[in-house]
């Protein structure tokens, strides 16, 4: 692995501490009646209501959403702008695949940390049901246009190739990996936005239809419609709106090469780099000890394990064993995806990561209801996307 430069460098600029003071999340659904714009507004409105704020209190808006090929709407960031409260405001939209759900709050973070704005409304939205015959067909464009698409690939191939390599490298079985799907779908039963909260067994996962071996149907999260929103505020104004702000103390993001066939897929180096950047900023020296719970990105069950290792929450190849031992259950020593994750709650591409940020917010405020993890004091959320490339990480504390 090429040396990690600049990770240990101190951030010399004077920055404001950034608080999360409100959150809103729509249901994640197979198909929503609302247009994407309406979904974005619903989430943003709930976030504002939760903080007792109106749009007048918001100075800037950042947004994350997938490109036109998904929804068939051109200039999608602009089209969604009014639903994100961006009307007549400075506005920025970005997309880094599934990493967007944590990247949009990171964008919001630097708007406030820089001192340029005091409040920021961050919204992420996706409406995948518009894309026919299946959103996966739009993902065809992820493969190289000159030397890969001609082979007729499906998006799931890349996951299957990565899962196979991960299993092979560490001798992990499908039974061990299926435990993640069972855990997360069960956790999601307690999430009001969940699309697929359900009690299932390892046997059901292993008997589900094979899509692209080793990936089977119950190893995967669904395509969804949904939106989420959080409100960020600088330390100067946070207490004006709430007695209970949650601090976004560490952010990190990192991108690996698009030449994915030149990398060993068994380990996500880019997640490690993004995590170290975030931990360094938040002053976390020993994540295994200092992180109370985590929401790594889990579009597929093996991904949760893959990312736990990238996030330095355990050693390489150890995540499966910890899952077997129950360490990652809500009442375990290191709860992982107490929300139910993408596997249980759903996967509207850009909004899924934001669901994890919302989860950290509610858990750290003691507002997670039946999903509440005991003694939650520091949480880490991570999202991932593109061509097995991007890691985006956020560390939040009470």
């Amino acid at each position, binding site marked *: 692995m*090429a040396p990690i430069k600049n990770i240990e460098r101190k951030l010399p600029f004077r920055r404001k501490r950034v608080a999360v003071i409100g959150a*809103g999340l*729509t*249901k994640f*659904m*197979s*198909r*929503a*009646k*609302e247009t994407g714009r309406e*979904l974005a507004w*619903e*989430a943003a*409105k*709930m976030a504002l*209501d*939760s903080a007792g704020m109106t749009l007048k209190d918001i100075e800037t808006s950042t947004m994350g959403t997938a490109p036109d090929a998904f929804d*068939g709407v051109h200039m999608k960031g602009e089209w969604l702008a009014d639903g994100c409260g961006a009307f007549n405001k400075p506005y920025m939209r970005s997309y880094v695949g599934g990493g967007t759900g944590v990247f949009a709050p990171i964008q919001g973070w630097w708007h406030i940390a820089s001192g340029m704005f005091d409040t920021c409304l961050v919204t992420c939205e996706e409406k995948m049901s518009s894309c026919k*015959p*299946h959103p*996966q*067909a739009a993902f*065809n464009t992820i*493969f*190289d*246009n*000159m*030397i*890969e698409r*001609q*082979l*007729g*690939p*499906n998006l*799931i*191939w890349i996951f*299957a*190739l*990565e899962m*196979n*390599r991960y299993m*092979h490298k560490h001798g992990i079985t499908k039974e061990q990996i299926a435990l993640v799907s069972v855990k997360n779908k069960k956790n999601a039963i307690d999430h*009001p*936005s969940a699309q697929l909260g359900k009690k299932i067994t390892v046997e059901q996962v292993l008997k589900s*239809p*094979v*899509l*692209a*071996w*080793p*990936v089977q149907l119950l190893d995967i999260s669904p395509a969804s*419609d*949904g*939106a989420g929103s959080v409100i960020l505020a600088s330390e100067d104004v946070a207490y004006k709106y709430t007695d209970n702000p949650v601090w976004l103390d560490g952010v990190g993001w990192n991108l690996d*090469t698009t*030449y994915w*066939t*030149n990398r*060993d*897929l068994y380990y996500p180096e880019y997640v490690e780099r993004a995590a170290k950047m975030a931990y360094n900023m938040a002053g976390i020296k020993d994540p295994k000890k200092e992180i109370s719970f985590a929401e790594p990105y889990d579009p597929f069950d093996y991904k949760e394990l893959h990312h736990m290792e990238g996030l330095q929450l355990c050693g390489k190849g150890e995540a499966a064993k910890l899952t077997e031992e129950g360490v990652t259950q809500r009442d375990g020593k290191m709860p992982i995806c107490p929300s139910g994750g993408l596997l249980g709650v759903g996967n509207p591409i850009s909004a899924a990561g934001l669901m994890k940020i919302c989860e950290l917010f509610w858990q750290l405020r003691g507002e997670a209801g039946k999903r509440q993890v005991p003694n939650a004091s520091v949480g880490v959320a991570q999202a991932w996307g593109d061509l097995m490339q991007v890691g985006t990480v956020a560390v939040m504390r009470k």
Partner: protein
Amino acid sequence: MSAKKSETEKFMGTPLEKESFEDGSVILTEWEPKLWYSWSTGKVVGKFLSELKAGKIAAIKCDSCKRTLIPPRMFCEICFSELKDWVYVKDTGKVNTFVISKIATDRSPLKEPKIAAVIDIDGSDGGILHMLGEVNPDDVKIGMKVQAVWKSQYERRGEITDIKYFKPIGD
């Protein structure tokens, strides 16, 4: 607090059942975009594809990083130098990882499963995505040695599919 909660609940979204997309209870608008692209292959991939037509696999070297790269590229993404040193590599390699696919690009089921793999090409520091053939899905192993099976010179057109697939060769 409870009044506020029910106020908020009406913004949770309106899920629709599959039937509503089919029975006319929701008005739907359909649109098929006419998008067609003609991509310039650039200096490097163009040459790579032309060499495939000639029945050869061409890679490019980065001397500072000491890497032989396939797919070839115009610049090294690690040290950012321009790359110009071409070299032919063998058409053999090892299976780095593989997938047995039962679905097509659009998620519709395939009649026969297809096996795709990332193949580490011998003599290079890289690999490519391609298909495996002449092998039973149950017999595919990571680390297996494979060799390219080419189309005849009359059928080759300068495309990645000039290689039909890679087949296993014994140790």
